[in-house]
């Protein structure tokens, strides 16, 4: 659907993107991750043809990206904005018409969306009369009015209360089911795991990681397990053994739990064989790293500055 090839963008004092290539499949939900200043916004602006890359190409459905694709892309910027003094209805119609929709068609779709999100009675209100969360809803409607094939959402949930996050998530997933490809730029890793099929991680203008979310998490396993058991386990007090290293231990009224990292050449079966003579095992679970952990470790590894909420 979208093929980004070797994009370079330089500003006077810094490089925003150096040779970034990304493939985005049709119908996928694609996460664009990276700390602030990594180059995400620069990339999004290039896809939206707001700015031009210094070199590199983008193909949209196999065609070189050109102004005719503008009406097939919907963009919700991180910094939301609407005309404060303009009525909501007029505003939504205006923005849709700028995306090549006829007024009649725009009116139809606006009615559909206003009913769907139960905001019909806001039609004649001005933006300045609405709360921030309400404005976000209107902005979302304005973004999807023209049924874009590609929807680019930059931090779509910032400023929403949990109820509205659910509503918007539902709408995004429904659009995705209908075939809309979605690029999702965010820091919120839990929503990445929940929504995204694939991701790319950008740091300091370079792509440092990309692939399917499940595969990435699978690949970043560290051969660690969580074991829940009853009984007395020797080796608890840090005494060494040939199978694993202790990472953590916890106890509650009913059972105990250890977290271990297996030494090279050992498998889960070896761990079980080693433990069974000593304790009765209630559960064994491989620890698959969360996207959050992968994000943090990769960004630290490549020397980036983490956003505050992730430190």
């Amino acid at each position, binding site marked *: 659907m979208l093929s980004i090839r070797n994009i370079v963008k330089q500003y006077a004092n810094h490089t925003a993107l150096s040779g970034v290539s990304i493939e985005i499949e049709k119908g996928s939900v694609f996460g664009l991750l990276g700390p602030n200043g990594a180059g995400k916004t620069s990339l999004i602006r290039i896809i939206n043809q*707001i700015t031009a890359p210094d070199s590199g190409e983008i193909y949209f459905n196999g065609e070189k990206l050109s102004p005719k694709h503008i009406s097939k892309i919907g963009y919700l910027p991180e910094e939301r904005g609407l005309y404060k003094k303009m009525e909501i209805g007029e505003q939504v119609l205006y*923005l849709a018409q700028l995306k090549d929709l006829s007024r009649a068609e725009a009116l139809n779709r606006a009615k559909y969306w206003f009913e769907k999100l139960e905001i019909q009675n806001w039609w004649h209100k001005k933006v300045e009369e609405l709360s921030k969360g309400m404005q976000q809803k209107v902005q979302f409607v304005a973004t999807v009015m023209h049924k874009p094939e590609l929807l680019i959402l930059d931090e779509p949930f910032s400023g929403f209360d949990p109820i509205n996050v659910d509503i918007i998530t539902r709408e995004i997933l429904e659009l995705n089911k209908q075939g809309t490809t979605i690029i999702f730029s965010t820091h919120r890793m839990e929503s990445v795991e929940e929504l995204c099929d694939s991701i790319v991680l950008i740091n300091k203008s370079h792509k440092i990681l990309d692939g399917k979310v499940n595969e990435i998490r699978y690949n970043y396993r560290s051969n660690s397990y969580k074991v829940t058991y009853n009984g007395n386990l020797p080796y608890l007090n840090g005494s060494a053994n040939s199978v694993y290293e202790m990472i953590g231990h916890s106890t509650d009224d009913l059972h105990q739990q250890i977290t271990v990292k297996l030494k090279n050449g050992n498998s889960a079966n070896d761990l079980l064989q080693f433990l069974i003579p000593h304790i009765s095992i209630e559960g064994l679970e491989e620890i698959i790293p969360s996207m959050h952990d992968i994000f943090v470790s990769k960004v630290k590894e490549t020397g980036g500055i983490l956003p505050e909420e992730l430190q």
Partner: protein
Amino acid sequence: MNKILLIVSREYLTRVRKKSFIILTILVPLLIMLMYAGIFALVIKGDELSGPRNVIVIDDSGIFKNKLKEDKTIRFSYLDASIEEAKKIVKSGDNTYLLYIPKFEGDQPLHIELMAKKQAGLGFSSDIENQLENVIRDRKLTEAGIDQKVLDNLKTNISIDTKKLTEKGEEAGSSGAAFGVGMAASILIYMFIFLYGVQVMRGVIEEKTNRIIEVIISSVKPFQLMMGKIIGVALVGLTQFLLWVILTSTIGSVAMKALMPADAKHKIEQMQKQPGASIKAQQPDNPAAKIFDALNTIPFGMILGCFLFYFLGGYLLYSAIFAAIGSAVDNETETQQFMLPVTLPLIFAFIFSVNFVVNNPDSPISFWMSMIPFFSPVVMMVRIPYGVAPWELALSMALLIAGFFGTVWLAARIYRTGILMYGKKASWKELGKWLFYK
């Protein structure tokens, strides 16, 4: 193109629907009419309102008695009393003056004094001076043996009719009328450029601070947005101007009918009916007729055309720069550092026109100023009523169009970078860099 139209119509409609637009549209013609009414009242009624000035004359020379002319505004009374007594009267009465004429020393009295509770107005005192001079001159001429009849014959009243020699022959002209028309057009253009240029700038800043800019330019090119805004505001300006003209003339004619005394109305109607030349033949001394005559010589169609051209050209040139400034800042207070260098040429052109061009419309400096696009809208409008060679006009217009394309090109380059820059205080150096971004 379609998108520009869409932007133009939004910019136009939101502005025209604003309360401030409607209020300004109604208020300005009313203010203009009030101003005119005020001036009218002052000129026509001013002297009558305060009543005639009573001038007590103490004439020690004895030759002025009953020779000073009275009219509605001046009454003379001749008193055979001492100055001290007369002073007392003056002190006790409003609007009373004391004119003291001492005895002749040589062939004229020295130290003539005009006293009052308040300083006498300049017009009033020079009026009296004139009268005294006339009386003395008449007396001298009579003494020299010249007959009173000859004297009366000598009195002539001259006023100069300025005429331009053109290829078509003689044309009557009036520097007074040309002055008035040129200045009015120049002031209007100056005001409009400021008024609406700043509106464009505000609009750009609004979009930037609202952060809607990124949404819009993901749909249209920054250039389209900028041009849409500039054209939209230009149409607002033209609408407002048109409404002002219509409203002012409507209110004016209604007020005329209601307030004008019948005979004056009749006079004006007569003047308007007759072509200028015949009025001149019939009533050579009627100054009102002369003004009408002079106004007729000014090619209003041509001036109106030029006015619209220079109004639009000047506005487009400056508003593009204003748009660029708006894009470079985060809020209106930051515009100061950029505003001054931009408004300076405009203010300079205006002051220059008022003080120099009106007096020297054909000097080389006036010529060059009316060629340079940043000055020409204001300067040329002052020159046009005096008559400007067609090639000069054509060159000036062509240069203005070229200048407009030049500034729009530059402004667009600054604009497309500026609108996406937040939080950085832009310097002139930075703006220069933006010009060369890809």
